[in-house]
């Protein structure tokens, strides 16, 4: 579970020095279809190079593209999830440029009439979402790691032709933190749809950010720079923040922002300009004559709308509005599908426990314990939703104390222990017999005359020492509230 997702975004944009940042995102999502966008080759990641190729994805003379129906369905699903308008007839175009990773020397993409447009995901408007094909993967041999100055460049066409959906937002984001949070929401949303692995490190989700700043209150857009290819939203947040800061210093010193493409190095925190000539590229867009317009049938649109699962944003509002879970925890849970599913599993164990309490346990103690014990992934944790549910139940009904609960949780995370068994074996059950507890309280007062006297004479804080004594005697099995009540009774307060 990501840290700090609760630091409410969207407000940090207007800065004290009078500038606000304006950020738009371009997100490429690799679809997890069986086969490529325009041919029958299998999709793969990490296979031996150039084994998933055919004349079509190698751009041989005479070949023609045939669109992958599943990719179109996935695109429609994304369009529905982002609340977009779907074009009745969208058009594929050829985007022309020479590069060895581009076998036909044009990429089939969409240009003036994209599959979907005018959508929204929470506070950010979606400008458009369109279908296209991915390029091949280049590996540059030599010290530079770039094509310039490399000894040789190798091309792996396994990736060439992988279906992509490119999502372009309006420039509605205002800070690095908001970029990270919203990016995580988008990733969770697409993951929930089951149309992509959304793995940024493997490149199945890639995010570029366009960053500019302007005086607060201005409605004009400043000159933007583009930050490319960050492999996590946390790095993107840092990169965007660094770029906002750079632009502010530049403008404050009377300078000008130059339109360029930047790379942020997370290890050094530095921004580098990628002096590619791409800025001046004329892609000579041409309507793709080899494909007919993409006209989804009413049945396809209906199928997409009907198969939409409950999406993270809707889940978060349901947790907040119907279950009374605080906003921060609601987001934390629902933006990561597996956590939300886990939470609902815990909740289902005992309907008597307040959802708010369950949410606190899941996002608080449990998440913290996973982090503490070697940063475990939820998917690999030994704790089942059911066993965590039974632990929370025991605490909620007062069978064990909160403190005992935490120590049981420790062994659950460590060795997958059954909480009921641990409670029994270690005798952690609370002393529910108030006669027995009363005896212990009385002897604690007798054994600690000093603190007892201080409390009697008005020093409320001194009661802590007496509570501690009782807890020590009961090995944490006493209910804190009850101990307090009995202490006050016997101290004549």
């Amino acid at each position, binding site marked *: 579970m990501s840290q700090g997702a609760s630091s409410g975004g969207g407000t940090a944009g207007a800065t004290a020095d009078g500038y606000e940042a304006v950020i738009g995102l371009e997100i490429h999502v690799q679809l997890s279809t069986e086969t490529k966008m325009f041919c029958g080759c299998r999709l793969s990641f990490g296979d031996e190079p150039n084994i998933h190729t055919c*004349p079509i994805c*190698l*751009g041989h*003379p005479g070949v023609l593209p045939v669109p992958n129906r599943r990719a179109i369905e996935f695109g429609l699903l994304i369009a529905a999830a982002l609340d977009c308008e779907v074009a009745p007839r969208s058009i594929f175009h*050829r985007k*022309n440029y020479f590069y060895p990773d581009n*076998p036909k020397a044009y990429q089939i993409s969409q240009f003036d009439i994209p599959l979907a447009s005018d959508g929204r995901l929470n506070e950010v408007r979606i400008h458009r979402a369109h279908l296209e094909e991915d390029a091949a993967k280049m590996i540059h041999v030599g010290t530079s790691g770039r094509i310039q100055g490399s000894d040789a*460049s190798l091309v792996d066409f396994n990736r060439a032709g992988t279906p992509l959906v490119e999502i372009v937002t309006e420039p509605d984001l205002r800070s690095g933190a908001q970029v990270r949070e919203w990016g995580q929401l988008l990733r969770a949303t697409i993951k929930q749809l089951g149309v992509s692995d959304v793995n940024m490190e493997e490149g199945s989700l890639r995010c570029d950010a366009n960053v500019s700043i302007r005086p607060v209150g201005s409605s004009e857009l400043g000159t933007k720079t583009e930050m490319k290819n960050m492999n996590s939203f946390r790095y993107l947040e840092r990169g965007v923040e660094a770029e906002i800061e750079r632009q502010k210093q530049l403008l404050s010193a009377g300078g000008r922002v130059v339109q360029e493409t930047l790379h942020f190095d997370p290890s050094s925190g530095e921004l580098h300009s990628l002096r590619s000539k791409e800025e001046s590229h004329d892609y*000579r867009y041409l309507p793709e004559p080899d494909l007919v317009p993409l006209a989804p049938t009413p049945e396809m649109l209906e199928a997409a709308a009907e198969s939409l699962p409950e999406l993270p944003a809707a889940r978060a509002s349901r947790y907040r509005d119907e279950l009374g879970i605080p906003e921060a925890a609601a987001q934390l849970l629902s933006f990561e599908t597996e956590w939300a599913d886990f939470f609902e599993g815990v909740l289902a164990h005992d309907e008597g426990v307040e959802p708010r309490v369950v949410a606190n346990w899941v996002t608080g103690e449990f998440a913290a314990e996973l982090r503490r014990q070697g940063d475990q992934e939820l998917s690999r944790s030994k704790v089942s939703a059911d066993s965590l549910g039974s632990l929370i139940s025991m605490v909620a009904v007062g069978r064990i104390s909160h403190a005992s609960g935490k120590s049981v949780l420790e062994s659950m995370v460590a060795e997958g222990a059954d909480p009921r068994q641990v409670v029994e074996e270690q005798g952690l059950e609370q002393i529910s017999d108030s006669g027995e507890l009363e005896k212990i309280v009385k002897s604690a007062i007798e054994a600690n005359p000093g603190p007892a006297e201080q409390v009697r004479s008005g020093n409320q804080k001194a009661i802590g020492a007496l509570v501690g004594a009782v807890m020590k005697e009961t090995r944490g099995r006493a209910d804190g509230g009850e101990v307090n009540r009995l202490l006050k009774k016997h101290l004549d307060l």
Partner: protein
Amino acid sequence: MAEGDLTKPTAAATGLLISSGEVSSDEILEAWIERAAGDDLNAYLWRATGEQAQNGVEGSGSGPLAGVPVAIKDIFCTQGVPTTAASKILQGYLPPYDATAVSRLAKAGMPMLGKMNMDEFAMGSSNENSAYGPALNPWDRGRVPGGSSGGSAAAVAGGLAPWALGTDTGGSIRQPAALCGIVGLKPTYGSISRYGMIAFASSLDQCGPITRDVTDAALLLGVLEGRDEMDSTSVGISGGISSPSASDLSGLVFGVPVGLLGEGVEPGVRAVFDATLDRISSLGGKIEEIDLPHAGHGISAYYVLAPAEASTNLSRYDGVRYGSRAPSSGLVDMYEQTRSAGFGPEVKRRIMLGTYALSSGYYDAYYGRAQRVRTMIVRDFESAFADVDFVVTPTSPSVAFRLGEKTEDPWTMYLNDLFTVPMSLAGIPAISIPAGLAPPAGGGPDLPVGFQIAAPAFREQKLLEAAFALESAIGFDGSPARIP
């Protein structure tokens, strides 16, 4: 039967000889391979041995066309067989797959005789843009066979192949058929799969038969047409194609676009055209003057649209994956050297024209405008076909011209396509049949004149019937023996 005789019958007649058991398919193939070996027209770029010709051929001896060999324009990909599109840039290229049209012929049992000369990437009207030298017109070896399917037409007219597969983008089947005195059919766009046909201008390219007579054209079209899941733009012809049998033209109306015929038609060509109109009348057909108001702009629109598409289609020849790669230092240099050395001048001219037309800032003025003209031409034909069954013109404004006569002036060369380009832009079917002989403008022995008939989209059967009736009435002998 003597060997010379085996190459005499038309393809349809040859098929009958084989299926009746009168001759074996091996004898037929052997005879044709020998004819091809005697190619003195530079028609073949690659010739098959007997074994190579049979590669992938199925059902030998079963269907009506089984065993009838066919020549293939070198623009079709043929697995493991050199395919160059008559360009140096594809020298040594062996495709890893067969074009759909090629495999359909093989499935019908037809051996492949060889790969035929053409204008480089199908860009040209004389076959002089081939990197391997021009094919020659069998009627006069000092003259062009037309283009771009020049090798295919020369071979069929010259008796080097029984029939051939060509492609037509702006007239590349019809014009060489006309100049060589044989039949060429460009079917409706979408009726035959383009998969595996090396793209020149994708929205115009269409493959079709080049044959001695209309019956052969119908037979070959019947094998080729059909939807192909490898080509999203293919639809096939509903109802298929059968052998034409009409003997008159009664009740049919033939429209003559008089405005289009005004300029540049050689008098001899005009005379044959007029005589053919008379023959239509005598067969019961009705001649009507019609107007295709925008067809005259067809050439201008075509020479924006086709190069624009070509400029992106030909970008893949970059030396990275296949074909030739020139010695170079660095990536950009590799692109420049490879493409500079690999493409001929006409291909370069069209790539530059097309690149310019698609450049940002010019797109609407050129490509956008040409598309609008194309739409108007489509509407011209639609309103014409509301009144007439067919539109007829001479196929080409002139008979075959001398080698080198028009190479210095691209525009004069482009005007050869004046009457064929409008049908390409409209995507409708059109056939050229030999209608007679006429003297060339500069004097010399008579040469063939083609008569073009165009029909509404997917009305190939009706078109073939009319062409068949007219062909029978004209009685033009399309066999090589006719050639002096």
